[in-house]
């Protein structure tokens, strides 16, 4: 059964199409890594899949409320402690075991620290722990290992593997090696949108008047 099916997708940023004609499916237990040069549109595509912006063209098929999204900004509140931050997101997404997530990302020792006192890498780990408490099957991750050191990257890979083994799936954009050999890779470079006025509805002002 496929958790996510993308058909002929075109996404736009700043009123101009970034990539178009992207199609892929993602089944339970699979991971897909998006690659491509800076500015090709990886982030934009992920935000479309997460439902944060609308696709210009094409279809995204998936069950409702199946996506957990994580980007550079971790959505952490500096004034709240690690546990409080995590518990909040667990409650919002309805469920998820906070203790287990803390253990998995080796944050138990820091549980009562305010998030303000974490280093960049620790913050990132907390942001990944948040994914576990959402209880969502499809993880959409934008450069998940930024500012992680080598040990934490391995821990992250293990986390993703466990998620896949549990019937989840992951869609990730990254520039570096995640240590997930089994993941499929999709290079977006060939899908770069062709300049010129495309047929159909313009993606925004910039396309409407170009």
């Amino acid at each position, binding site marked *: 059964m496929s958790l996510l099916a993308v058909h002929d997708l075109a996404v736009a940023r700043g009123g101009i199409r970034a990539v178009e004609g992207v199609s892929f499916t993602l089944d339970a237990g699979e991971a897909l890594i998006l690659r491509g040069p800076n500015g090709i549109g990886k982030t934009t595509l992920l935000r479309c899949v997460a439902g944060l*912006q609308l696709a210009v063209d094409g279809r995204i098929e998936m069950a409702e409320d199946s996506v957990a*999204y994580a980007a550079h900004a971790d959505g952490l509140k500096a004034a709240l402690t690690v546990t409080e931050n995590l518990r909040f997101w667990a409650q919002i997404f309805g469920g998820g075991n906070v203790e287990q997530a803390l253990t998995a990302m080796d944050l138990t020792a820091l549980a009562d620290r305010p998030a303000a006192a974490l280093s960049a890498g620790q913050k990132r780990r907390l942001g990944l722990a948040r994914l576990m408490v959402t209880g969502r099957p499809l993880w959409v991750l934008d450069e998940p290992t930024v500012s992680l050191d080598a040990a934490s990257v391995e821990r992250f890979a293990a986390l993703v593997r466990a998620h896949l083994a549990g019937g989840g799936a992951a869609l990730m954009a990254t520039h570096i090696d995640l240590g997930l050999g089994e993941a499929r890779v999709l290079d977006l470079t060939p899908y770069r949108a062709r300049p010129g006025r495309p047929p159909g509805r313009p993606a925004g002002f910039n396309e409407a008047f170009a």
Partner: protein
Amino acid sequence: MIALLKRDLALATRAGGGFGLAVAFFLILCALVPFGVGPETSALRPIAPGILWVGALLSCLLSLDRIFALDHEDGSLDLLATAPIPLEAVTALKALAHWITTGLPLVVAAPVFGILLHLPGQATGWLIVSLLIGTPALSMLGAFGAAITVGLRRGGLLLSLLVLPLYIPTLIFGTEIIRRGAEGGDPTTPILFLAGITAGVMALVPFAAAAALRVNLR
């Protein structure tokens, strides 16, 4: 849902959350006006209800930009938008949290500051009533303005500019309640109007605010 409200309240009362700043600003405003218009009771008494309402309005205003901007900056807003709570509920809850941390303290503080402005005693009750009915509308309209300007850096002044005209009906009926009440008249009509505005605002503005947020998120 309750979790969101609880978090916002916790954040407001922790260090750096700015709880109480609005009341302090209100106090300073009430203290400044006598310096401007002169200290005589005869000068202050007639304008006291108006000044208190305008002061409450401005204090409310200055704390608005925090409603969504902080969550936008740290990415929480993206995550809330993908959470299984409708964005309309998020805006309404955040407006509620703003009201509890800003509007309610203002309602409590207003009678005290009324003394500074020689507000007549029989008007105090009506002041509280009018603020209690009116301030929720201020928070909700403010949340709308905050949602529109959330993407702008340093949009505080623009936010004020957009929101203040929307506050006019609330202000008019709010002070009218006090004036009629203090004169011994019957303030039922303005009370009904004010309550009607607040109810209408609570029912409809969350949708406009959520729409604005969605635009700003994409």
